[in-house]
């Protein structure tokens, strides 16, 4: 589904990604871990199309098409979803209207009729239960005055509404207490299907207790330096990132 080859990216002449190779297939859950500053969030941003970053080398194919050629909205409509690490507060834009616009833009792209008010509300009610999000939140301005946990749940709620092929969760676990984490994880697990995939970006192994990955990759200095199964995450939790840094140093 997603094929990243030798991806290099920089911001204002500072190199952040130094040759990433990653293959994600339908039905898989991948986790990317790594110390601060290793390039995790940059990877998420580059995939979602944030224009602060310049891709200097490499390619990304999403279902056989060149992802890097597409605008952020085209990527979203093609089924790529980024759950933001820091969801933006947008006063004056109603959450419900925003999601309705987003859903219908995606439907239009897929050649489907827009949902009418009744069908939209029905879908919304159903998906709200999934992330235990309250109606009162959705009638407010987008993320305005939401707590950290509410913002993250709203991200997963949007994911549930948009039904992406590939969901990238950028440190969705940060700032969540254990109950909120469980709700978010339950939501993601429920939405998991054989024809979609999830890329989790996280610092901590904690999230992976709830969303079990098929593959774990360690990102360091803008490269994937180690890949393995879910047991790699446990090893990292136990030994910290230092042993990875050491291994990398020894290779050089």
């Amino acid at each position, binding site marked *: 589904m997603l094929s990243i080859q030798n991806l290099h990216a920089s911001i204002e002449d500072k190199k952040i990604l130094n040759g990433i190779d990653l293959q994600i297939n339908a039905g898989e859950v991948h986790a990317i871990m790594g110390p601060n500053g290793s390039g995790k969030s940059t990877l998420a941003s580059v995939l*979602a*199309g*944030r*224009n602060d970053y310049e891709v200097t080398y490499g390619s990304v194919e999403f279902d056989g098409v060149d992802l890097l050629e597409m*605008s*952020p*909205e085209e*990527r*979203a*409509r093609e089924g790529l979803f*980024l759950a*933001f690490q820091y*969801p*933006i507060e*947008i*006063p*004056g*834009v109603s959450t419900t*209207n*925003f*999601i309705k*616009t*987003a859903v219908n*833009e*995606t439907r239009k*792209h897929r050649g489907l009729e827009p949902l009418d008010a009744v069908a939209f509300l029905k879908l919304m009610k159903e998906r709200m239960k999934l992330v235990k999000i309250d109606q009162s939140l959705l009638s407010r*301005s987008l993320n305005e005055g939401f707590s950290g946990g509410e913002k993250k749940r709203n991200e997963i709620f*949007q994911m549930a509404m*948009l039904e992406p092929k590939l969901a990238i969760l950028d440190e969705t676990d940060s700032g969540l207490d254990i109950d909120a984490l469980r709700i978010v994880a339950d939501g993601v697990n429920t939405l998991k299907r054989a024809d979609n995939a999830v890329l989790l970006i996280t610092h901590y192994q904690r999230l992976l207790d709830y969303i079990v990955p098929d593959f774990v990759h360690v990102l360091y200095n803008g490269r994937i330096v180690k890949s393995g199964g879910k047991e790699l995450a446990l090893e990292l939790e136990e030994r910290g990132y230092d042993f990875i840094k050491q291994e990398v140093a020894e290779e050089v």
Partner: protein
Amino acid sequence: MSLVETIQDKYNELNTFAGNGLLGSMREKAFEKYNKSGIPTSRHEEWKYTRLTSLANKNFELNATAILPSDEVLNSIRLQTEYAAELFFINGVFIKEISSFQNDAMVVLPLNEAAESEHKNYLHQHLNQSSKYMKDGMNALNAAFTANGLFVLIKKDKVVDKPIIIYHLTDTTDDNVFVQPRSLFVIEENAQVQLIELYKNNGLQESFTNEVIEIAVHENAKLEYYKVQDETENCHHVGTTHVQQVGKCFTHCVTVTLNGGTIRNNINMILEAPNNEGHLYGLYMVDGKTHVDNHSIVDNVMPNCFSNELYKGIMEGNSTGVFNGKIYVRQDAQKTNAYQSNKNVLMSDTASVNTKPQLEIYADDVKCSHGCTVGRLDNEALFYLRARGIDEKQAKALLLNAFASDILEQVKPEALRTYIGKKINERLNIDEL
């Protein structure tokens, strides 16, 4: 003939025709004052960014009477709503015949009739109060030609439950016109009223409006005032709204500029009694070559007054904006709370805004704050919306709509809010949100 010459030419004609009395002596003094100061140039500090010289040199007709527009034209400018009174100014002249104001909560008279009526004391008390604050030639020029303006009295204890709507129509089908509407509103004790001024035009020639409206609000009364400018680029406007809070009262004023040529809005809020409360809001959303200048004065004369001011601007194309907000806190005005904010979004490289807060505080126990911003749309917010599949244009529209919404929601009459909301959406090219 230039406008400056036409003014000299027409003054005597009008003055003779309009007779003496209260208005006559006001005209005379004002004309003298006008002759001393003339039409302001950009050398005048208050007019640094708003240039009238080229208008002053242009040919404009100046007439004391107006040709009535067709019913079709009148209907096309009407708001779809119920009203307590519907008052028409056609080319600056109040036309009683086509206005309707059958309502026992109010008295409506042409200003010259009011000057001879039982209400003439109110004219003595409140007419031309704005000249104390507006020292430039434009204010004097309006007073120098005041004859057939509008006088409205909202009677004591009356709550007018539907809005009073003043339609200003400039008809420029044949000639360039210079028009000078003049109104005096007196809101008596415990009365409440919503007043709307809507500016529309018809025709392709140029118009130049020089308006003065004075509103005196008495003890415990409540005023909502809305000024909505929706003319085309060939229409220029200098207008002063002077709100005198005579007794402890509440006022809420919103100025919305959707389109026009060169526009200068002065709004003065004079808090003359203790414990007064006043709110000023403004939204300007302009494009092309439109120039919009909002000058406000909030004068805290007595203690314990509260004022809040928020103006927002969306500037596209080559438009230029000015915000100048003066707050005076006089020596006796202890415990004043006065807040002011001006926020602007520039949507093009060629649009610009000059914003200037100006606070003069002579009391020592007050709370005042001011702030202004000029910037572009938030890129992070834009990216967030686009990352959900909303295209760039629509995402911008959503954000601008949101930016404007906190002024729009200050427009309480539903029909007017819908009207403005629709105009904003049309401009942003969005169907419904």
